[in-house]
């Protein structure tokens, strides 16, 4: 475990160390890992290159909104697809999976046309609404909820619990590991989302973080050290979210259910 972790972490260490390097050091064979001179002021300078505080705020708002929306909607949809029987259920599910297969490159153009016609270009709506539910999320919640034993649900129904009550008090707590992963996954995917914000936004006030980072690469040169700086900063919120949800990966606790 220790050796494997060491190998895993090497590129990350390289990332962090490079963020402190001077420009000359990045391609210097004698300073591959450890910089010859430390430049902590890279962190301050990087922020001055573009309105990054605005980008950060935008990325945060959008990612949070999409994550919260996904958690609610995908768990509801997944629960319905997993535990209730109704006509056409399999077809709907098949259709949902089918949408996952379409290459995103091809999806962008029609999506852009639609968003433009609604008038959501260059707005938070355009950044959030198209992703407020994901086929991945629905698929995932359905699969995980299939593993919830029927007895728990039946016992609650016999005790006179309403469906929504069952959902909130039994299904959701049991799905904590799946929900945690969905939250982290959705947040990360949206936080790092590059192509869609590129297509949809045009003004500086609404741009997101990845767009800002890419700005360090021009036709003539690439400011690698600033890229590393921003990446280190950009990696913090998702990592924090991950650490926060780590403790929600709990085993199905039976005792708490037998009230």
């Amino acid at each position, binding site marked *: 475990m220790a050796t494997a972790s060491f190998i895993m972490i090497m*590129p990350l260490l390289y990332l962090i160390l490079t963020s402190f390097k001077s420009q000359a050091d*990045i391609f210097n064979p004698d300073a591959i890992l450890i910089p010859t001179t430390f430049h902590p002021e890279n962190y301050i300078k990087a922020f001055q290159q573009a309105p990054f505080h605005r980008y950060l705020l935008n990325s945060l708002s959008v990612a949070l909104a999409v994550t919260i929306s996904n958690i609610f909607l995908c768990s509801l949809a997944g629960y319905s697809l997993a535990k209730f029987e109704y006509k056409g259920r399999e077809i709907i599910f098949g259709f949902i999976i089918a949408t996952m297969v379409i290459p995103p490159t091809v999806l962008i153009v029609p999506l852009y046309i639609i968003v433009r016609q609604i008038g959501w270009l260059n707005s938070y709506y355009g950044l959030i609404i198209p992703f407020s539910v994901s086929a991945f999320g629905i698929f995932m919640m359905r699969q995980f909820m299939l593993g919830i034993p029927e007895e728990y649900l039946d016992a609650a129904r016999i005790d006179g619990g309403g469906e929504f009550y069952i959902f909130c008090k039994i299904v959701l707590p049991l799905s904590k590991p799946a929900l945690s992963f969905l939250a982290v996954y959705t947040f990360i995917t949206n936080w790092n989302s590059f192509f869609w914000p590129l297509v949809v936004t045009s003004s500086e006030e609404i741009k997101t973080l990845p767009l800002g980072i890419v700005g360090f690469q021009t036709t003539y040169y690439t400011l690698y050290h600033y890229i590393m700086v921003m*990446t280190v900063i950009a990696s913090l919120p998702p990592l924090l979210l991950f650490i926060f949800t780590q403790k929600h990966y709990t085993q199905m606790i039976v005792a708490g259910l037998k009230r």
Partner: protein
Amino acid sequence: MFYLSLHSWSLLSSPRFIGFENYKFLPQDSVFIKSAKVTFCYLLGMIIFGPLALILGIALNQDFRFKQLYWGIFFAPYVISLVVSSLVWKLIYNPSAGLLTLFTSPLGLHIKWLKDEHYALPAIMVYSLWVYIGYYSTLWLAGLKGIPPECYEAAAIDGAGKWTIFRYITLPLLKPVTLFIIVVSVIGAVQMFVPFFVMTQGGPAGATQTLAYYIYKVAFSFLRMGYACTVSVILFVLVFIFALIQVKFFKES
């Protein structure tokens, strides 16, 4: 998408209907055939990660010192935007000043990883492994946590050994999760685009040109939207059929 695949469209003018011409061209397109092969190779490489990640997931299910920390370290690569981590690894693979040379120089290995026909695709596979192993292990872990502990207790009382427990209790109970992970990893692998774009741009002589990258090239470099849609349709149909087979397979058991 299906509609557009029957047209010829350069994005600059309006689409021109040409029926199934695009589809007839496919078998003659040697680049398409090669991309399909490359994609398939990449896919095979990625599928091997499934069981690897499961093993890691099981390991993470135990309790040991610093577990949270190790788990975090494995997950961290996924957190970084693909564009940036691809850039970092591009630097790492750099034959003159990259991080990898710290280890390969003493061994006398001087390979131009990303520029070598035989090593470019494996290099990207190693990168993908680095990014996704923590992600998939965590997925497996979530699935493992969904198994009620009584099952394990009952089996232990009946005197079942570790391997028996794994085979007859853990694996069957993981079926829905396994289906999900297989389908999602196949779809993900087939759509993987960023590292191919950032690190090799289709690679030395098309060695890393996957179908996803080819679609992008046809659509935005050659400006043949209609044909790009055609390739996309084929991709879509193949993966969809695969997904259906998987669902059927998991339903029977």
